[in-house]
């Protein structure tokens, strides 16, 4: 990608992101009262993360078997309320283990 195109993308990306964070913190210091909007906003992060994670997670590694293994381990540790770091590392290790076994076979 040429440098100019990259910077245009970067400015749009960073500009939108900054305004999203800055407007509420600097301008709207009052409270949101509308129940629908409040609920909607509360659900958004989880819906986004859910849609981003599935089914992409099972395709995130070299092959489906290691992807599914990593997913199962990640789900297990996340369900057990382990920290972000622990869950991420455990999923990576599971993928690594399966990949090494596959290489050895």
């Amino acid at each position, binding site marked *: 990608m040429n440098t100019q195109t990259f910077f245009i993308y970067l400015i749009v990306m*960073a500009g939108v992101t900054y305004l999203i964070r800055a407007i509420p913190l600097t301008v709207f210091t009052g409270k949101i009262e509308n129940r629908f909007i409040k609920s909607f906003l509360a659900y958004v992060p989880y819906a986004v*993360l859910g849609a981003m994670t599935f*089914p992409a997670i099972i395709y995130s*590694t070299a092959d489906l078997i290691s992807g599914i293994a990593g997913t199962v381990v990640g789900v297990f540790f996340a369900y057990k309320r382990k920290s972000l770091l622990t869950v991420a590392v455990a999923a990576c290790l599971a993928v690594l283990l399966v990949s090494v076994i596959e290489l050895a076979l």
Partner: protein
Amino acid sequence: MENEASDKKKDIKRGVQDGIPIALGYLSVSFAFGIMAVSAGLTPWQAILISVANVTSAGQFAGVEIMAACGGLVEMALTQLVINIRYALMSLSLAQKVDDTFKKPTRMAVSFCVTDEIFAVSVSRNKTVSKYYMLGIISVSYIGWIAGTAFGALLGGILPAVISDALGIAIYGMFLAIILPAARDDSRFLKVIIIAVVLSCMFRWVPVLNKVSSGFVIIICAVAASAVGAWLYPIDEEEGN
């Protein structure tokens, strides 16, 4: 005066301490981001600049996908808006917790780094949030985010494929660690997440639907699932985040 100075130091120290686990978590995720960005065709410097300018996880991954696919600027702006709109709520919530050290310049600077983790950790303390505490927690986390990106972008290529492959799942592991505890605690969140996941799977596997670009898929899934959730299972009071 003396008292004030020691409070300052204490707050910065406390912020730094709270920032360390966040930075460690960011290292693995931004490392994966660095690898992903370079493999999508960006230079290491471009990958690092994205992390310096954005400080988002999901937003950056989606943004690079759009760049790689030569997507439109409207698609880029809308994708960032929908993926990152949660930060508006966090900023709003944070605005209610800050103390009087938060003047306008501080607010504008802190706005740059309102992430899920920094927000959650700083707001979940039982005290008001001072700018010194924010300075500590943000600087440590920010360094972790950029360092991880640099390592991934520069060293990702010389890592054995098995290792860089395994790291590809790190970001999703982090996402699981955010959504599953919430789904366990509150069945309404579970239902909304299930709706989003089912829609997302449809956009992946159903013919015709799978032609829609990934940025718009996330927008559609998130808006539809959240709207259904807000309509059928409204949230009262100060629950959720």
